[in-house]
């Protein structure tokens, strides 16, 4: 049971039940849809970027606890950060849930390290990274759709 608790940490369950930054974003100037064909989950990420800084970010959609909590924690983590910082976090997050990261990167990821347990669940890596891929797509270009496949 111990590793299951590592996947579903309290922080994750909390963000799943009470997602932050959930809903439309009136000031959004970048949007993207994400789709995980494995489970049929879809989510939309809205971003308000000005002068290379993420002033506002939100997400909408339905998904499993991992994908919802990941989107919620992501929006908390990137709000107020520069686009470059957000992209760096995405890269570090991706590394953490696939191959693992060292202590320095863990410190940089901060609260996002609650997802380190996902690495032990290959079938759930896509759930955790869907929102990040979608954020990346939103930042790269306007109004596109991405898929985890």
């Amino acid at each position, binding site marked *: 049971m111990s590793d*299951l608790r590592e996947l579903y940490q309290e922080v994750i*369950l909390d963000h799943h039940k009470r997602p932050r930054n959930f809903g439309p974003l009136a000031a959004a100037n970048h949007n993207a849809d994400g789709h995980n064909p494995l489970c*049929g989950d879809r989510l939309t990420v809205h971003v308000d970027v000005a002068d290379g800084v993420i002033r506002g970010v939100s997400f909408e959609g339905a998904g499993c606890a991992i994908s919802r909590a990941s989107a919620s924690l992501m929006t908390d983590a990137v709000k107020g950060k520069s686009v470059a910082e957000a992209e760096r976090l995405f890269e570090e997050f991706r590394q953490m849930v696939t191959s693992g990261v060292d202590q320095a990167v863990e410190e940089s990821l901060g609260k996002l390290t609650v997802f380190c347990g996902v690495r032990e669940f290959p079938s759930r890596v896509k759930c955790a990274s869907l929102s990040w891929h979608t954020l990346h797509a939103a930042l790269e270009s306007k109004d596109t759709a991405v898929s985890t496949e």
Partner: protein
Amino acid sequence: MNGHAANGSAVEQVNGHAAEVAAVEQAFRPAPFNVAAVRRDFPILQQQIYGKPLVYLDNAATAQKPTSVIDAISNYYLADNANIHRGVHLLSERATAAYEGAREAVRRFLNAAESREIVFVRGTTEAVNLVAHSYARPALKPDDEIVVSVMEHHSNFVPWKMACEATGARLRVVPITDAGELRMDEYERLLCDRTRLVALGHVSNALGTVNPVADIVRLAHARGIPVLLDGAQAVPHMAVDVGALDCDFYAFSGHKLFGPTGIGVLYGKAALMDHMPPWQGGGDMISSVTLEEVRYNTLPAKFEAGTPDIAGAIGLAAAIEYLNGLDRVAAAAHEAALTRYLEERLSGFPDVTLVGRAPGKAGIVSFVMSSAHPHDIGTVLDHEGVAIRTGHHCCQPLMHRLGVPATARVSFAFYNTREEVDRFVDALARVREMFG
């Protein structure tokens, strides 16, 4: 009636009648199914997952294999392995005899008229694609129609969609009721002089609905329309008689029938398949080749290009032999009892909604839970040793129709037990604890 009963009280008479009824019921009741005995035939079930005994409830995805199937494959490779047909040595003769013997075993299993009507393929998907390619495409013209249903597995949907896109034909889709039953009135209405083929599932993999295939075939044949049935989810649960059904094509997979992966069956009426062009070119499907001309082989070799999955066919025959040794009526009754018991126990979960409530379902219980996403249910259950399937079950049009992105699905085989249902329900209570 004897003197005592004639003079006896009304109570005695009623009791006497009840005993009589019970005796009659007993005589017609199938012998109880010996689950403990069959479980011993499936060594994979005797293992621990995360320290807990495995509860395997993902049989509709693939079924486990009895020792006799594993041994048949192993013995073939240990003693008889050779390429089939045209070999002049003894091993090749033995391998050919075993492979063609497997075809005959499938013919008897389906009650087909001739063994040449049995084509070995990789699985149901390949069988449907073969018919789409060799039967439908050459015949389809713009505005012709193929009838499928909204509950089809993608394997019995996409090949027809592709055939339609290539030819300008149209796909007509039979709707379902909210309970998950085919709308037979709509089905009948869709059949018309433009319909070239009906392609429907015998049993729904996502809902467990058993479709009225005899009526489906009868109504189509009344208008001269041939019928393909996707039997992937039917053959593991019931005896199928293609002779009596009179369907034109019937497809199933070995691995869902307790046989190996990589082998499946297309049954097709010889009268139709004789006129169908070959699908793939290569060895075995030809009778002669010159630089100028290729002459094709006859059935079934015409549709079996290249060295087939010989061991797979032998394994499939062993699975059929295993099933023939079971009381299949008792096995089906056992599965039905498990399904009823699980649905009863789930009714104690107010946050659980069953998806698919057709009467007489075949061993499948699909559901959603308001407090937890199917994916999370699947992961938590796995850690309790319980294997189920979660997702869209390769039925995205159906999920769309039902308004859910995914479901959690329990699918039974005859080796499952009541205790396993209890284990599943306990694990589900744990899901609610975490997410509720």
